[in-house]
């Protein structure tokens, strides 16, 4: 009997102990959430979610250190966050959970989407009281931050998309004048054909792959605008993917696919790596649209490459000196704990002479702010100077509307369908227009 009683007591104690343990675990969990959660920062410290990795990662850390040095009492907690047009789960979840960072980088074309879904704080008031004016920015870099009469971000890096690069050595080998790159689409086609070499049914050298300029969607943007087309009408909020000029551009793009089996072209392209195995360095691919980051890559991986850089060729009735702007913006997420300190950092990096110059110099990218001293330094440098001019002439940015990722995917599908001969360019682009318009209408209706 006595032993039975002890047993019961023991069991009761055990249960109580278990409950106490569980309870304290729950309580300590709460304490963590309310008190010193991992997202909580010290006095004067803000959390910055950024996208600089690889060689740019350590460079960004240097920029941040310079900010801390120039601003005593301020500290930046840098967190690398994978962020591209299609993967922002981490950011959205953090905003939904009420624990966003204080500053986030946002891809230019995403600003409208992120603003529409309510994940950003508008900066309009702060910008006004800081006396920042739209004219101080390259027009596309300002436009991409403005949505529904509010400004949601400042452009930090402006990528002039793209420079047109040609391998001068390959030109010489094929008996072409390396100082005379193609300037019209007809010339580009002709030179492209001359530079393309097939041996025993296998492609050995290609002039240019029109649909492979940083992905099918970026390719159609690039050539579509060069042909004089337009992708979106912000006034009427109509998608215009099937603009006659865009259709013309796609018709031209797939000519190469008609001459050479696209699976075969892609096969050859698959052998290309990015960085050091880039086919442009080896002369397997003779011409391509080059992102500004490409200069640094070439300096690093193929310092002896003899190449020229200029404007993208365009048809005579298209848009001369055509280019568009991509790049990264900075924003304050909705619910950020320290928006004032966040704004101070954003303003320094995007809109101060020392911040923009340091950022440009360290990261080899251009600021969105026109009067940054970095431009004066770059103008006379080989290649970099070309990009300054391309940026100044730039007229476009990707459509400022909330279903950007969807539109990119539809454009990619359209280009692929046309390249592989499943649809005519007109049909493919009409499908992209129809699907994206439906998606946009749904989003604008608040769905």
């Amino acid at each position, binding site marked *: 009997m006595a032993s039975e009683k002890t047993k019961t007591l023991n069991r009761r104690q055990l249960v109580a102990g278990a409950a106490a343990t569980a309870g304290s675990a729950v309580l300590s969990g709460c304490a963590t959430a309310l008190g010193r959660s991992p997202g909580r920062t010290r006095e004067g410290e803000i959390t910055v979610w950024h996208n600089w990795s690889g060689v740019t990662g350590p460079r960004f850390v240097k920029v941040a250190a310079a900010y801390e040095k120039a601003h005593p009492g301020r500290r930046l907690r840098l967190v690398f966050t994978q962020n591209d047009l299609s993967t922002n789960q981490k950011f959205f979840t953090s905003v939904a959970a009420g624990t966003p960072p204080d500053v986030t980088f946002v891809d230019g074309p995403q600003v409208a989407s992120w603003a529409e879904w309510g994940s950003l704080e508008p900066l309009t008031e702060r910008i006004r009281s800081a006396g920042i004016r739209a004219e101080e920015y390259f027009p596309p870099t300002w436009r991409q931050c403005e949505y529904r009469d509010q400004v949601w971000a400042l452009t930090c890096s402006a990528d002039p998309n793209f420079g047109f690069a040609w391998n001068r050595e390959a030109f010489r080998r094929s008996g072409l004048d390396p100082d005379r790159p193609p300037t019209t689409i007809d010339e580009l086609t002709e030179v492209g054909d001359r530079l393309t070499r097939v041996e025993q049914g296998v492609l050995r050298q290609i002039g240019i792959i029109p649909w492979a300029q940083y992905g099918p969607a970026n390719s159609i943007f690039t050539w579509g605008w060069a042909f004089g087309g337009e992708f979106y009408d912000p006034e009427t909020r109509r998608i215009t993917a099937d603009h006659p000029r865009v259709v013309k551009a796609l018709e031209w793009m797939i000519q190469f696919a008609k001459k050479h089996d696209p699976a075969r072209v*892609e096969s050859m392209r698959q052998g290309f790596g990015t960085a050091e195995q880039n086919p442009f360095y080896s002369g397997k691919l003779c011409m391509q649209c080059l992102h500004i980051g490409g200069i640094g890559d070439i300096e690093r991986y193929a310092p002896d490459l003899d190449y020229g850089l200029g404007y993208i060729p365009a048809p005579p009735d298209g848009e001369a000196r055509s280019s568009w702007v991509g790049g990264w913006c900075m924003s304050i997420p909705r619910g950020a704990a320290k928006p004032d300190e966040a704004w101070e950092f954003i303003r320094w990096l995007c809109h101060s002479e020392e911040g923009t110059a340091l950022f440009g110099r360290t990261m080899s990218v251009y600021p969105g702010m026109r009067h940054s001293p970095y431009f004066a330094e770059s103008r006379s440098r080989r290649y970099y100077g070309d990009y300054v001019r391309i940026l100044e002439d730039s007229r476009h940015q990707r459509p400022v509307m909330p279903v950007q990722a969807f539109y990119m995917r539809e454009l990619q599908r359209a280009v692929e369908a046309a390249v592989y001969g499943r649809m005519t360019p007109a049909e493919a682009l009409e499908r992209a227009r129809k699907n994206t318009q439906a998606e946009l209408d749904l989003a604008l209706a608040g769905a």
Partner: protein
Amino acid sequence: MVPTKGQRRRQRERLWTGVAFALPAIVGLLWFTAYPVLASLYYSFCNYRVLTPPRWVGMANYRHLFEDPLFYTSLWNTVYYAAFAVPLGIVLALGLALLLNTGVKGLAVYRTCFYVPSVVPIVAGAVLWIWLFRPQEGAINDMLRLFGVREGPGWLQSPEWSKPAIIMWSLWNVGGSMLVFLAGLQDVPKELHEAAGLDGAKRWDSFRHVTLPFISPQILFVLIMGLIGAFQFFTPAYVMTNGTGGPVDSTTFYSLYLFNVAFSDFKMGYACAMAWVLLLMVLAATLVVLKSSARHVYYAGGEQG
């Protein structure tokens, strides 16, 4: 006999002790499984962008789904994959298991070799296969060249060959099923084979009428798990195509499309509707297999299938 007061009290105490011990599991199940599942059912009737509150729209997501051409494309891709990958996987796994069951020397070494791919992380394996599939310098087309195929398929770059390529990848991972079959084969009574041999059965007859019935439960198990896995097929397609599902939508599998809808477009309501339709399809396929197989599956212990 009516339990005494004391007995009842002790019973109650025992009950609560049990509940206390099971509590973490119960809470976990309710909070991390039941709640999300039920919430996703609710969201499937809503427009829900995660950052804004869900808004009830009734059947709109489901109606939209059945008018969405990409839904049918993704379904077709998935069914295509399941129709080839699952049966081929079973045949290959069974074949390997039969070979390993012949009592070859160094059995453990072979078993390890065939099982190792199943231990490799899926993403790492997929990246590796991207290299093998490279049309110009990949190992597969190199091998084909030895057999006189001058220009092998474009594999992942070709709309016609991308699905067969991914099916080939899936066959690399049959190690798990192979082990299941191997275990089953080792349970087949030797006396039956001997008896069949004495009665003049050839090797094939012995396999067909002795081995196969004995391992039919394993086949059913592998078939059903394979089907469920095929319907949820995602990771390699995502890795091998960078999530684009290309070329020309040829690798847009159901789960890949669902992922894009959910996490690229943030149409969580639509994605939830897709997930529930997927669940119903998997359920239906599993039931069909279970019902139609009842007569063909033999349980040695005498339980009903």
